[in-house]
């Protein structure tokens, strides 16, 4: 080979070497782009998914919190209404209590009532000997009607004797006085068996308590309909 041919061959080889390097560099660049895109996409998708879940969870909790709060408000409001109903009904009991106090002022009707209460208590106890307690202010009334009451009881119960001891040591508390706090009695009587084991409370106050309890559902229904609220 002569110089020129050698030189040409060398140049060809140099060109070849460079071409191969550039092709390889190109391949590397192309794969770099591909990997770049894949890597970026993967990271973004994975992170976005996590964030989405996180915020969906937060929003759900927000919703639940809202609903709980509203439900609590609703309950509080219902409670207020029920409380109000209760207060109103109690108010009526108190109004009745006030009236009770005046009953004993009408002597004629009060005496009649005392007689009936004594007879009722005697019929309940069915004892031949009882202790009767009343207010100090009612002692006179009681003695006025005692014999009639005994007679009526004996007739109704079919017995021929009954002994009533009116307690003149201990009395039922007096009528309600706003100036004097403490226990009070609006009238009526308490009867007990001699050994004190069986007691019949036929005071006006006790009767009102019983009646009120019994009539409460009816009163509530009349006022508030159904079960209220």
């Amino acid at each position, binding site marked *: 080979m002569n110089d020129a041919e050698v030189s040409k061959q060398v140049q060809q080889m140099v060109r070849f070497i*460079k071409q191969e390097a550039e092709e390889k560099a190109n391949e590397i660049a192309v794969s770099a782009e591909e990997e770049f*895109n894949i890597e970026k996409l993967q990271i973004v998708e994975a992170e976005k998914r996590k964030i989405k879940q996180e915020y969906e969870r937060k929003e759900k909790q927000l919703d639940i919190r*809202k609903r709980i709060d509203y439900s609590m408000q609703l309950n509080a409001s219902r409670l207020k*209404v029920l409380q109000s*109903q209760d207060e109103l009904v109690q108010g*009526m009991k108190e109004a009745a209590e006030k009236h009770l106090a005046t009953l004993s002022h009408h002597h004629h009707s009060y005496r009649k009532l005392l007689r009936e209460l004594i007879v009722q208590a005697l019929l309940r106890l069915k004892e031949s000997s009882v202790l009767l307690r009343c207010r100090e202010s009612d002692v006179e009334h009681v003695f006025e009607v005692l014999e009639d009451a005994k007679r009526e009881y004996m007739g109704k119960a079919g017995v021929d004797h009954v002994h009533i001891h009116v307690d003149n040591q201990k009395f039922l508390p007096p009528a309600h006085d706003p100036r004097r706090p403490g226990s009070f009695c609006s009238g009526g009587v308490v009867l007990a068996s001699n050994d004190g084991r069986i007691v019949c409370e036929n005071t006006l106050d006790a009767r*009102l308590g019983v009646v009120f309890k019994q*009539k409460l559902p009816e009163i509530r229904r009349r006022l508030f309909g159904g079960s209220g609220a």
Partner: protein
Amino acid sequence: MEKGQGGIQMLLAAEQEAQQIIAAARAAKSARLKQAKEEAEKEVAEYRAQREAEFKKKLSESSGDSGSRVQRLEVETQEKIENLKEEASKVSPEVVELLLKYVTSVKN
């Protein structure tokens, strides 16, 4: 002889240049991959900020909502209670009379 040597030099130089070209391509690739991470993180941060903004908006809307709802409930409740009071005062004398009647009627 010199020309022969020259030829070999040229080939060696070309070889070296080839290595450099390839090394440069490799370096560019790894830089590109690092970029992938950086750009991804940027996009992710944007997305997070967007979701956060949406969430904050929902938060403020709902608290405004519930505030007015509570008020409305309060008003309704008060109305109900007022109605009850009215009803009660209408019916009260009747009820009191009924109670007293039961207290004072004795069935023997």
